[in-house]
């Protein structure tokens, strides 16, 4: 009896410890990464990093102003394409259609969500870069938008489905047609959730590297238009990190820190949107 009990207690303690250790590891994964970035990149992040161009190997200093601006350009472009398409597809999934077609759309969106990002990059290279004969921010934006569409569609769908049916019926019973009901009652009721999903989706794609390697490529200078090759933070990190120059490594760490900070900020913004309270009754 006592041996059995002590064995049970031992298993209990081992499992508790295991879960605790793994929980600590999860937290430390982020803290560790963040610590490294701050340690190696922190001192290189100054005003110049945000405003100056990268310098050729051998010269110390410079910045990644062009990559920050380029990343912003590409992400804004991807958002302008991906958010509306994803949003309306999500509305379709939640509100329209019978059983078969939404099932196909939903399944396809999930598959698209699972496509490795490097494959998306090759695809955008084939359909945009090859016909245009050069790399461009346009191609990069398109590649990222392909990743953003399914994320936005699925999260929009989820939050729309959370709006109670009684609210739909309330609007319909006043003589609103279906689209009017969706546009004036359902979407506003789900607004915070939808926006949160969008912010997280944009944060997610802004760190993607692989789709940009074949599309927007890179640029050592300020890009002059959407059809030019354009620098971006993820690609800049990649090229600087693999180069054999110490000063470039330092810059890569700094770029990583800035990128992570931007993504964390987006996450915090999303949390704040949620925590301002859902507007629906419980």
């Amino acid at each position, binding site marked *: 009896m006592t041996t059995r009990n002590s064995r049970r207690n031992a298993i209990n303690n081992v499992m508790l410890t295991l879960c605790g250790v793994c929980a600590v590891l999860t937290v430390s994964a982020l803290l560790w990464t963040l610590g490294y970035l701050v340690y190696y990149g922190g001192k290189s992040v100054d005003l110049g990093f945000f405003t100056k161009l990268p310098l050729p190997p051998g010269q110390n200093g410079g910045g990644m102003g062009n990559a920050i601006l380029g990343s912003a350009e590409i992400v804004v472009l991807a958002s302008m394409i991906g958010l509306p398409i994803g949003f309306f597809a999500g509305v379709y999934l939640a509100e329209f259609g*019978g059983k078969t077609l939404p099932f196909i759309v939903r399944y396809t969106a999930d598959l698209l969500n699972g496509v490795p990002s490097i494959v998306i990059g090759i695809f955008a290279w084939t359909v945009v870069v090859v016909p245009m004969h050069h790399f461009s921010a346009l191609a990069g934006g398109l590649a990222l938008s392909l990743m953003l569409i399914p994320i936005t569609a699925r999260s929009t769908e989820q939050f729309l489905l959370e709006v*109670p049916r*009684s*609210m*739909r*019926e*309330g*609007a*319909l*019973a*006043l*003589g*609103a*047609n279906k689209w*009017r009901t969706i546009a*004036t*009652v359902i979407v*506003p*009721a789900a607004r915070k959730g939808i926006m949160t999903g969008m912010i997280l989706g944009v944060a997610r794609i802004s760190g993607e590297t692989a789709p940009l390697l074949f599309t927007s490529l890179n640029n050592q200078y300020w890009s002059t238009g959407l059809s030019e090759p354009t620098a971006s933070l993820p690609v800049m990190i990649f090229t600087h990190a693999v180069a054999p120059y110490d000063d470039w490594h330092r810059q890569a760490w700094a770029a990583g820190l800035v990128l992570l900070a931007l993504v964390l900020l987006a996450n915090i913004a999303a949390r704040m949107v949620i925590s301002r309270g859902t*507007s*629906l*009754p419980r």
Partner: protein
Amino acid sequence: MIPTSTETSTQAHTAVPKMRAANVNFFYGSFKALHDVSLEFAANKVTALIGPSGCGKSTFLRNLNRINETLRDTRIEGEITLDGENILDKDVTEIRRRIGMVFQRPNPFPKSIFENIIYGPRINGMLKKKTAAEVVEQSLRRAALWDEVKDKLNESAYAISGGQQQRLCIARALAVDPEVLLLDEPCSALDPIATAKIEDLLVGLKNQCTIVIVTHNMQQAARVADTTGFFLLGRLIEHDKTDVIFKNPSKKETEDYITGRFG
């Protein structure tokens, strides 16, 4: 077997009916929820629909403004008329504007009190003659809510009590000047005081529109209704003056239900 309700409802009133249902059958998928229901609703009267849970009274009510057709896989047979015209052939948004509905649980929109009231008039393009402020005050007065909320029109509709929210929903329905008002167990989520306020309100609204109320509460039917219809297993068993239904019903099923032998 099935009572000819036209006969009984003629006894109940002599005026021209505002709404009339003739031989209505209704299906959820292959399940037949209503069997050949025929019923007339006299203008400017309150008609109560009573019966045990699952008897089809709510299903029937929800067909009177065609809100049931928004559910997947449903089918209706028969005829429902408003002023002699079959609503099943008409434009559904116009029908729903003319036949308002209040639901079991208060369902205000996540907007301000003001915006809730103005929603219907706005989508129906009714704000040309009267200003929004006039419509809001008039509707809230008709729902006996004006004095309680006049100082917080711009606050969220969720900031007021459940009973007030339900009266807000009534005001919202009245704002589009419906000719008929359908209420689906409007007091089931409310306390007795809030319930009494809504009952008083309904009696006062009679001269402005025709009222149909589904209720679980027989005392409520006795208090507010001019005529009462009793449903059982998807059929209308009997429809007559409320006194007659409660004191001298002609069907045994009605008597059993009224006296509490089942349901």
